[in-house]
């Protein structure tokens, strides 16, 4: 397999687009042809956001859109969104990363009751490879819960063929100086969870 397809799923404001962008740029710096696309309605208002990233070590990437069933990884920043895009994962060789975190849609009646709290167990029962990370909690412990996205990025980086130094270089380019130190720690913590 040469084309790596990655699906980032989250809620507007969680920063799924940012880690998708960092992944793309790291892949580009590694010399891989890369495409990225984001699908959202009005993202700053708390709707679902999906970002597709595809890169290839050898050939050109044609479609920016991932086909369900082919993603090397699905990265869910919370459970419901992970579930919404879980069918994109390659059932044989793919991995679903899930932040152990629930964001209840505020605009759905009785959402708390009908929210799919059992997402992780369900996806595992479907025979899929699921890795659950307490990314929000780890990020809070590091000082800012909003860095959960970068914790997940750290975990993801361990299964991709992009050299480590390029990840850190790209994070430094993308994340404002003020937040850099915390985010590098979040990235490191995510990586360590996978070792």
């Amino acid at each position, binding site marked *: 397999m040469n084309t790596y397809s990655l699906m980032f799923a989250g*809620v*507007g404001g969680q920063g799924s*687009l940012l880690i998708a*962008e960092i992944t*793309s*740029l790291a892949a*580009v*710096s590694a010399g891989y*042809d*890369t*495409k*990225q*696309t*984001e*699908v*959202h*309605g*009005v*993202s*700053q*208002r*708390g*709707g*679902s956001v999906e970002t597709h990233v595809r890169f290839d070590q050898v050939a050109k*990437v*044609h*479609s*920016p*859109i991932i*086909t*369900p*069933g*082919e993603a090397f990884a699905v990265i869910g920043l919370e459970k*419901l*969104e992970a*579930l*919404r895009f*879980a*069918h994109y994962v390659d*059932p044989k060789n793919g991995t679903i990363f899930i932040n152990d975190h629930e964001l*209840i*849609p*505020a*605009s*759905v*009646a009785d*959402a*708390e009751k*009908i*929210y*799919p709290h*059992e*997402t992780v167990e*369900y*996806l595992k029962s*479907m025979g899929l490879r699921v890795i659950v990370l307490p990314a929000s909690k780890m990020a809070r412990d590091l000082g800012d819960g909003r860095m959960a996205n970068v914790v997940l990025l750290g975990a993801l980086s361990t299964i991709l063929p992009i050299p480590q130094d390029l990840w850190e270089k790209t994070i430094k*380019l*993308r994340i404002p100086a003020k937040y850099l130190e915390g985010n590098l720690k979040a990235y490191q913590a995510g990586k360590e969870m996978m070792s």
Partner: protein
Amino acid sequence: MLFAAEQFHEHGGTMREFLLGNEAIARGAWEAGVKFVSGYPGTPSTEIIETLAMRFPETNPRWSANEKVAFEEGMGAAIGGLRVLVTMKHVGLNVAADAFMVFPYSGTNGGFVVISADDPGMHSSQNEQDNRYLARVGKVPVLEPSDAQECHDFMIAGLELSEQFKSPVMLRTTTRLAHHKGLVEVGERREVEKKEFVRDAKRFSVPIYRLIRRPEVEKTLNALTAYAETCSFNRMEHNDNKSIGVVTSGIAYQYVKEVMPNAGVLRLGMTFPLPANLLREFCSQYETVYVIEEGEPFIEEYMRNLEIANLKGKEIFGLIGEYSPGRLRSALALGDPPKPFTEQVNLIPRPPMMCVGCGHRTVFAALKQLKVTVSGDIGCYTMGALPPYEAEHTTFCMGASIGVAVGLEQAGHEDTVAIIGDSTFIHSGIPPLIDAVYNKSHLTLVILDNSATGMTGSQQNPASGKNLLGEETPKLNLEAFCRATGVGSVEVVDTWQRKEIVNTIRRAIAYKGPSVVIARGPCNQLPEIKKRHVIPFIVEEELCTKCDACFKVWCPAITRTEQNFPVIAANECTSCTVCAQVCPTDAIKLAEAFA
């Protein structure tokens, strides 16, 4: 979302950037020496002008009052000798259509490219509309890039084409093209000398000299048709296996390359006028030819008219919505991709919401309480049609709220209230307001004045007091303006004052004659509002009786604790005060006061 571009330097001195299709168009316009850019925000076109403002202000970009104005300003600049870019979403071209249809009669002087950003799948639009048909009616050539690199290249080539044939050119993008990123080889800006403008009424005063101009339009179109046969926008990629050929355009080309790597391909980069001979020649070489194009069967119909028989198209790929590799696979019986997990688990939707602290909420709460019929318009307030408010009963297109309310009144529905945003009012609400007064309507209009074009990302507009480049500019005085139209009652109210809003709208409805309520308060996504320091509200649990009144404000910053107390997310609260206003026990206080 826009990020500053990253540059990648390569061997041999080429420079590449990882760009959105829209950013690549902006970059291309800059490189081609464009000196005037106008447009009106609309997804998926907005980032073009935003990129120009951020990175390439020497292209002289602006937000215009609406697309027709943008187009006309662009026409003036182009006949005046400059290279020009005008941007809009697909429905914007409906607004600009009057100018769009007549421009080919005079033709242009400096290069003129108009972006029509079509939205297959209607990710953020009220309809699916394939603007290649409008181009055909107007006899304007259409270019369709297939990736970010071509967005850049076709922008530059489009200006050259425009100058070569003295014709306006349409660059048609679609959502996926505009909103995907890819590597783009970029260049530097090349200044282009301004062309001379001669006062030539026989050319530029079209209505008077229309009979002279009419044959010229056909001459240009004939020349373009001949050009289409050999131009480099169209490309054959033959295959030794002659069983399947594909005619395609736009982003669909990428899906074809991925799903049908063994097919011969004719990629049309210029889709109007179409090359009859090229199409015939290509099709004669393959057993079966698939026509794969997003949107309407524009190419396909043309080919069927040429009586090419071995075609398959919309009947297998479908008409509605966006294409994708998965969709092509299913259509070609190459296997169905997995479906979302919906059995045994509850895949509940997550619809978009108004932002925390958005000033529109109080207006919808009031309209719901007053139980009136609401003639709505297009903007963030369109979400008022959804639960929990469900207080918007008609919405069609920009500016329609007022005319529809006047019509509903004529049909006996006198309890109708029209609502419109400031940007939409300026865009297309002014003639209908004047009409309502002129025709003695008892219209009640609420203008939601948040000093921004919120829905598309909080851009500046004439009611903001700032322009695209952030410079101070005269702020349209909406209340004086409405009074000048002859509206008898104009009241301004702070949009976060719940009770006052209800009372003001009630008075406006009771007023005999046309009335306007301006509900005022800035959009929370405006850069200066996002930057400001706010003291959040906080719930004092000892005083809270868990009556749930604050939840009925529907602010996403308010959630529940495990003990079922309301809790306010301190880093999200914009301190709008609305939840505190509804709390019967004053349990919601400014964090500072509480401390």
